[in-house]
């Protein structure tokens, strides 16, 4: 009995130490990537190539999801607001919730599952097929040549994707409430412009998506680089990227929101 409790506590301790050790590895790897990113800025073609795979190819899912999220927000907002006779405020509702929260968070979640998983799988497979070691043999640093461009591509793409998501969402809300339901167009835009402050709402949303971009890209490249060089290891790393990124995005979002929007006075 006594021994079993001790073994249980030991298992908890083991897992905790393992987790902290991995976190430390990830932090050191992150700093290593930052230190070795000079090459990716000197040879910007490498980053552009990755932006194509990470950003441009994610466009379709981002744009379509943004449109539908905006349309649903418009419908639901109208449904509730018209009970109070203030259906013109639906523009405010759609724009504020998209610009502040849904735009950055939803696009980051989509980005993690669409692009983050691809980055992890690619780097993991390169490691499993010993391409990374081959690069090392040829005196090409794999962190500078493979990891850093992918990291920066993710960081650059994320805010742009979030902005596109928000714009598509606002357009979707406009489509449903003004064009289909028939809310007054002038009231829709003017109430929106009255409520959305450029510095307070939009800039803060962009700052949020920058943080998410760094988090998702860092997790994706670390998981890929750290994956055990087997088929099973790569698949596990890909799953971990999506799960960890999602948790990191939601946790970061809470912290950032608490700092940004807890009321000014």
């Amino acid at each position: 009995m006594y021994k079993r409790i001790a073994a249980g506590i030991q298992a908890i301790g083991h897992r905790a130490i393992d987790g902290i050790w991995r976190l430390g590895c990830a932090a050191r790897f992150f700093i290593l990537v930052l230190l070795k990113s000079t090459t990716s800025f000197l040879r910007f073609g490498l980053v552009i190539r990755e932006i194509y795979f990470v950003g441009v190819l994610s466009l379709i899912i981002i744009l379509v999801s943004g449109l539908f999220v905006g349309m649903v927000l418009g419908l639901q907002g109208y449904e509730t607001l018209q009970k109070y006779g203030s259906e013109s405020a639906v523009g405010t509702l759609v724009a504020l919730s998209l610009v502040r929260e849904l735009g950055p968070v939803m696009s980051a979640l989509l980005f993690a599952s669409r692009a983050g998983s691809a980055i992890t799988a690619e780097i993991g497979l390169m490691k499993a097929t010993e391409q990374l070691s081959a690069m090392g043999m040829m005196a090409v640093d794999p962190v500078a040549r493979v990891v850093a461009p992918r990291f920066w591509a993710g960081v650059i793409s994320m805010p742009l994707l979030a902005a596109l998501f928000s714009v598509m969402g606002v357009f979707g809300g406009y489509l449903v409430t003004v064009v289909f339901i028939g809310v007054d167009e002038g009231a829709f835009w003017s109430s929106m412009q009255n409520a959305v402050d450029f510095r307070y709402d939009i800039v803060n949303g962009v700052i949020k998506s920058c943080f998410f971009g760094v988090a998702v890209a860092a997790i994706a490249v670390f998981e890929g680089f750290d994956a055990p060089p087997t088929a099973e290891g790569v698949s596990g790393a890909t799953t971990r990227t999506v799960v960890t990124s999602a948790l990191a995005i939601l946790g970061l979002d809470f912290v950032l929101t608490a700092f940004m929007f807890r009321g000014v006075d």
Partner: protein
Amino acid sequence: MQRTIMDFWVGLFVLAGMVSLLILGLKVGNLTSYNTGESYTLFGNFENIGGLKVRAPVKSAGVVVGRVTDIQFSLETYDAVVTMDINSFYRFPKDTFASILTSGLLGEQYIGLSPGGDEEMLEEGDKIMKTNSAMVLEEMIGRFLFDKAAED
């Protein structure tokens, strides 16, 4: 894929992202009405500011002419000192009346400026002398009940 085609798509993507930020600023946000330009500061002492908040609009005849930038409690006069930034484009006479009003029945509170007839204009750092506090519902009900009791 050819390098040039890839460059083209990435360029398009970055441009689209920038344009959507611009749309967010101009069409969704209030960047058009943002005066990065000149503004001057006015102060006003209010007995009670009710629910007035920093960043609340300052309006005259319903037009937004500035914003509340700071609200402090004054230990000298024991009332609230409200700092307002007014767009330099709009000038008001010295005897302008500032009152805290509510937009709609449950709307947010703002400062309404009603200009007087003075020849001299308010300058940077001036204090608005004539102010009217926010209406506090409890006080109004109290006064109403008091009047009722006095009638009987």
